[in-house]
């Protein structure tokens, strides 16, 4: 049985604009030779701070960007080096939920058209207007929004509701893989729990493979089976979530876990000195 996502020695360099007339700028090495596999139905977390390359990696896996070198397989198919028009199978198998729902939902489209758009683009199940309408209503109900929501525009919803719309759109073409890029970072605490529950529920019910990118260690711990810790374009530690969190091996993982404020440690009397590793 093949893995859902295979990442092999993936490298992504970006060119910066020239700063000098005499020599080219040095490239930014966003991802420097990363390899891992995500099994079918697995919930895989990528954690790291800003600039660690976690979002770049997610974009590469989603075929939204091309690696400088290395290969990526999605459901057994190589997605590197293909033309955009040959990437249709990725678009139907794999869907993305982004951090900022306002930025990822077209403000001039009604929610009905936003959710139906992947169906229109793929001309499969949603080839007739009636079939699409039925699917949109089914999805709205699944993500906990009223039917009337279909006629409204994104700005008429709160942040949490917009993220529900993004999730409905992602699920529309019945993908097997869901990529989530900081899906709850912009949400309030009480809404964050609702959206996290929704994502875990769908992943479980539909047997999806989840790739979850976040800077928030506690969210990844709650959501994922396995986790890769990234820093400066490299994976520094990878393993089952419980193992990585309870017994981190790499000094950076240890530092990251120590630095995250924890209610438990704080109530035991741990102050800010403990976060920076100054002892208790």
């Amino acid at each position, binding site marked *: 049985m093949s893995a859902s996502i295979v990442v092999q020695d993936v490298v992504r360099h970006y060119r910066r604009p020239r700063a000098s007339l005499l020599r080219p700028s040095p490239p930014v090495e966003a991802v420097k030779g990363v390899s891992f596999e995500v099994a079918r139905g697995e*919930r895989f977390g990528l954690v790291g*701070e*800003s600039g660690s390359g976690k979002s770049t990696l997610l974009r590469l896996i989603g075929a939204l960007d091309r690696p400088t070198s290395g290969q990526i397989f999605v459901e057994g198919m190589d997605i590197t080096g293909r033309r955009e028009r040959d990437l249709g199978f990725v678009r139907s198998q794999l869907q993305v939920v982004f951090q900022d729902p306002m930025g990822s939902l077209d403000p001039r489209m009604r929610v009905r058209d936003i959710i139906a758009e992947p169906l229109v683009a793929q001309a499969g199940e949603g080839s007739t207007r009636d079939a699409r309408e039925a699917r949109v209503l089914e999805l709205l109900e699944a993500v906990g929004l009223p039917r009337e929501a279909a006629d409204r525009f994104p700005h008429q919803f*709160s942040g*949490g*509701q917009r993220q529900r719309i993004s999730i409905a759109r992602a699920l529309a073409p019945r993908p097997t893989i869901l990529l989530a890029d900081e899906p709850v970072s912009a949400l*309030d*605490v*009480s*809404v*964050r*729990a*609702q959206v*996290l*529950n929704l994502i*875990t*529920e769908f992943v*479980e019910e539909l047997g999806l493979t989840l790739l979850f990118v976040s*800077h928030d*260690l*506690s*969210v990844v*711990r*709650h*959501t994922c*089976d396995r986790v890769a810790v990234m820093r400066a374009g490299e994976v520094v530690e990878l393993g089952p*979530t*419980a193992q990585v969190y309870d017994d981190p091996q790499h000094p950076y993982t240890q*530092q*990251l876990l*120590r*630095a*995250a*404020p*924890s*209610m*438990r*440690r*704080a*109530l035991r009397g*741990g*102050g*800010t*000195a403990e*976060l*920076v590793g*100054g002892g208790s």
Partner: protein
Amino acid sequence: MTTAAAVAPSPVLEVRGLSVSIGRHDLLHDLTFTVGRGERVGLIGESGSGKSLTSLAVLGLLPEGARATGSVRLAGVTHDVVGASERAMASVRGNDVSMVFQEPMTALNPTMRVGAQVAETILVHAGRGKRPGADRAAVRQRVVALLDQVGLPAPAELARAYPHQLSGGQRQRVVVAIALANDPELLVCDEPTTALDVTVQAKVLDLIVRGVEARRSAMLFITHDLPVVATVCERVLVMYGGRIVEAGPVAEVFTRPRHRYTEGLLGASDLEGARPGKPLTTIPGTVPPAGAFPEGCVFRTRCRHATAECAAPPPWSSADPGHGHACVHPAGGER
């Protein structure tokens, strides 16, 4: 509600019956709280709860068109902040009370060297009250010392840098240096580390706490992040719908919450205690927009325990505004 027997020595900040409205919307409703000398108090709530507006009211920075009633008194300031003139407040801000905002890039002037911005704060208040007069060389020395205290490398050279040349964490350190430059009695922090990475956040939080401890300054710390408040503060005020719904020591409020909103907030944010992969407890619905909060208990439209009684404003549970809750059906049973 009285403030009798609250904090024995006179508090650094005393807010009494503060209400703020803009247009037809009542945004803050009858807030009463104090911050004692050297005390670190957290103000928590979700977006739209009025916590940032409260911090602006404390500094007299309310937007145009906002009407404030009640009183805000600061130690060492003879006038009330509510209704004070801009001229009067200008000598208070950055001196008796100062603020660290969320976004260091907007708090700093992009066209001025960071050292000059720290110096400006010192010079503006020099010669006033307890401050010595300005001596350029001494000020320059003090600026470098301050930048060094906030853990910036090579402070003498860094003082000549512009904000865009620094990283987000370094910028926030500069903002903290400016805020602490005149040893304020009260430091107000509004989500100071929300925009920062977790390892940088740890360092900046530690620096802020060490900074206020060294000066015996008090701190009002505003955030939506409960673990951060638990780590930084001693006492906490929980806001929802422009009201303080619960107040008390951190250890008590976070382990035995009384108000149903506090209880829900703790449940929803408790990712450490939840079984991995299992559903988290949630608060139904979302925070209503300003002006759409219900009459009576502001939380009753989202509360699983609400009854007809909750249509009337719930009374505060004790005589001490710094310790109690406003809930008719508190968690953990009637007292």
